[in-house]
């Protein structure tokens, strides 16, 4: 099924070096082996995320949107096609280099928050910095700043269980931002929150995107969430539907 020829990214990179896409996937396919059957989650997707963009990717469950997010976040490698971060092909990177790339350039926000229950909000936010090898004091300072940026300066020492769902997701967003990545990937960030709280979270992501210039990709099946994004994509059956002309 996979097309051999590389399709052009949906948005052509600008000519100047400053506008090299944060991440660009080109004609990628991803096939899983699930209990003896081959499942083709992506069937030839091309997409470039430019610095500072805010992109919403919507699609029904099973459409391949999570798979695409994993590829955009260097958590996974494509079966075919290329994934480039700032121009570097992930196929040329070792697993350890991929880990370092995730640490430096990508922040993740998950539907389930994925906070460590045993540790404080501050320690949770500081966690990515552990893998960057920063000293404890510096980690604490940066984590505090990140928590202040999401409006949780008063919750530094709280455990996840002592926080509301919205607060937990803010901690997760602070954790995604603490490394000052170029890209934040949010997988159904409002999926476990009520509508009002979800709207707050999306507004926070929008604000951080605008203030810091960090590119944000939100995966959602919620049309209202998708509606606030300047760039909206739909994915269906492993393929991205053509974007309407701007």
């Amino acid at each position, binding site marked *: 099924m996979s097309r051999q020829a590389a399709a052009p990214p949906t948005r052509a990179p600008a000519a100047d070096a400053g506008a090299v896409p944060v991440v660009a996937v080109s004609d990628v396919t991803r096939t899983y082996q699930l209990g003896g059957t081959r499942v083709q989650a992506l069937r030839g997707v091309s997409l470039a995320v430019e610095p500072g963009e805010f992109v919403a990717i919507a699609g029904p469950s099973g459409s391949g949107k999570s798979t695409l997010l994993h590829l955009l976040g260097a*958590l996974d490698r494509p079966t075919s096609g290329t994934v480039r971060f700032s121009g570097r092909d992930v196929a040329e990177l070792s697993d350890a280099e991929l*880990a370092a790339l995730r640490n430096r350039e990508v922040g993740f926000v998950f539907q389930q928050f994925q906070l460590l229950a045993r540790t404080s909000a501050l320690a949770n936010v500081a966690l*990515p910095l552990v*893998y*960057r090898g920063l000293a404890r004091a510096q980690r604490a300072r940066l984590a505090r700043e990140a928590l202040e940026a999401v409006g949780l300066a008063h919750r530094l020492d709280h455990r996840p269980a002592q926080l509301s769902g919205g607060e937990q997701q803010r901690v997760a967003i602070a954790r995604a931002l603490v490394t000052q990545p170029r890209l934040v990937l949010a997988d159904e960030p409002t999926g476990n929150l009520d509508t009002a709280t979800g709207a707050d979270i999306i507004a926070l992501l929008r604000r951080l995107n605008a203030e810091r210039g960090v590119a944000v990709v939100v995966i959602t099946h919620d049309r209202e969430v998708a509606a606030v994004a300047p760039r909206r994509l739909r994915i269906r059956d492993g393929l991205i539907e053509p974007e309407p002309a701007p």
Partner: protein
Amino acid sequence: MSLLEAVKVAATAIAANRLRSALTVLGVVIGVMSVVLLVAVGTGARNEVTAGVEELGSNLLIVVPGSFEFGQAPTLSKFTLDDVERIGRELGGRAAVSGNLASGETVRAGATSAFASVLGVTADFDEVVNRPVARGEFLTESDIATGRRVAILGASAAEGLFADTDPIAKTVTIAGLRFRVIGKVERLGPTLGVDRDAQVLVPITAAQRLFGTRRVDTIFVKAPDADDLDEVAAEVEAILGRRLDAEEFSVLTQEEILGVAGRILSVLTLVLAAIAGISLLVGGIGVSNIMLVSVQERTREIGLRKALGARTRDVTLQFLVEAVVLCGLGGLLGIGLGFALAAAAEAFTPLPAAVTTWSVALAFGTSLAVGVAFGVFPARRAGRLDPVVALRYE
């Protein structure tokens, strides 16, 4: 992730599951405790034997029946009083010689009775093996020659039979025969597991008649100086060799006894350490098992850490360090318990126990090694988890 960081993370994880962590390391605790305790008991036994043998003096020869080797069954003595006399005569004034014959007997004094080791000895016994007389006097040559029924009591034998009263000139009954008490030995304390204070000494001739034998169990020869010992030993061997086969007797110096005893005790200590080692191994398997469960439980955490930039190596290190810290804590606890039990054994039982540095170091080192050996498999499994799969794990 630095090692220090990994230790901190491990400490948090261990503290989060205190009960399970404690149960997990129980095997390691018991293993390390056993190593420390059993080696301490083995070493204590060796120390006591060494001290006991050394107390005999470096210029003493002990002539025993049979060949004296580890694993040798005891042999019935073929020595007689003639041998003792011949050795004494031929060595002349250069050495003091004594023979003895021992048997456990019930000794009575009026209504009181005590079980004592009755030793038939010759007149030089007090000088040759050091039995200073506290009251009265020791046996004389004429007592031996005539087989006179007189007895010298050890300090605790005298106490047991006569309490605080003076035993001199009193009568004791041994195997139905009456003996007159003529002396009492100073308190000496036990040595080599023998309570010298519970002994009752009688002329060897009287003892032979009492027990119906002409046998002498052991011959002691005391050279004036340790330097003469080898020469005297050779002469004693020559004298006995004229009448007995070479394998029917052994002439031993303190060093030879220490050598054989040392070999026996080394084997004993090794066996004890090996038993303890097996329990450490079993403890390690327990640690491995729980670490696997822990990896499984924390699959999502592993996925998250990888998403945030942890390398395979970081995750492997984290779980390996956790296993090692767990085992190290178990090791420390085991060492503490081992020390406590060794001290208790020393205080409340006749077992001597001496904790050795090498056993503590070995036990702790082994517990850390167990952590590494049994932590590697679960840790590698954790490190190799695919982050995408791990993050989805429910």
